[in-house]
């Protein structure tokens, strides 16, 4: 009888351990797909806020969001014709992002930026810097890099930057309590 009980307790302990390991972590994972200023701003406000709430944060930058992470003053080196053309046409870094609505040839975007300054809302540039200080991890989709012809040398200096595939995003998302697509 005593042995039975012991075996049962052991079995329950093992089940409990398996259950605990299967629980999602206190982690937020985000796909940042858009390169619009308003959407990237939202992504970084949520990311830094989540760090303040002590959550782990993993941002996965793909497609239109990839050019936002290009450094303004860095050159990517030698590229083929199509990649050079694409490189010219796509925004070079966070300062060249535009609003998804009311851009009006840049007038709307500039108006919003000036109002943000007045109301003490952090700029996208300073939010990215804060995210780096707080340990927000940024993973860039390698396929988007290849597609747009970007070189690692032309991306921003960010302390937690990596180049990954969709599998990494999925495994991060699977163990996150919150998942977002922006």
């Amino acid at each position, binding site marked *: 009888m005593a042995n039975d009980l012991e075996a049962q307790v052991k079995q329950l302990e093992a089940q409990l351990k398996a259950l605990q390991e299967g629980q999602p972590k206190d982690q937020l994972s985000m796909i940042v797909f858009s390169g619009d200023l308003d959407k990237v701003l939202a992504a970084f406000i949520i990311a830094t806020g989540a760090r*303040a709430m002590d959550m782990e944060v993993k941002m996965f930058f793909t497609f239109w969001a990839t050019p936002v992470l290009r450094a303004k003053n860095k050159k990517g080196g030698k590229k083929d014709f199509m990649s050079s053309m694409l490189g010219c046409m796509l925004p070079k870094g966070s300062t060249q992002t535009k609003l998804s609505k009311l851009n009006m040839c840049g007038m709307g975007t500039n108006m919003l930026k000036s109002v943000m300054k007045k109301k*003490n809302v952090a700029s996208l540039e300073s939010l990215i810097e804060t995210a780096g200080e707080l340990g927000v991890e940024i993973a860039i989709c390698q396929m988007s890099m290849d597609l747009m012809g970007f070189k690692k040398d032309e991306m921003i200096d960010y302390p937690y930057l990596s180049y990954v595939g969709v599998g990494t995003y999925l495994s991060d998302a699977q163990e996150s309590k919150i998942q977002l697509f922006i």
Partner: protein
Amino acid sequence: MTVEELKALKSDKVVDARGTACPGPLLAAKKAIGDIQAGQVMEILSADEGTKSDIPKWAKKQSFEYLGSIDEDGMFRLFLKK
């Protein structure tokens, strides 16, 4: 705590986050909480009304005791005990 009780409270640390918008006050609070000991009281000053709901939620998650807030001409004083 009532407003009178809060007003009589002596804060061990005051964080002035009036110059920032969301998520500034939350980040400022997180940064400053490391400077005080358990049992001490921290006061956060914010001009952003959203902070009034953010700070209690953050305090709950971190298991700090949220004591309450005072509205004072155009700003909010939020109190919590570590």
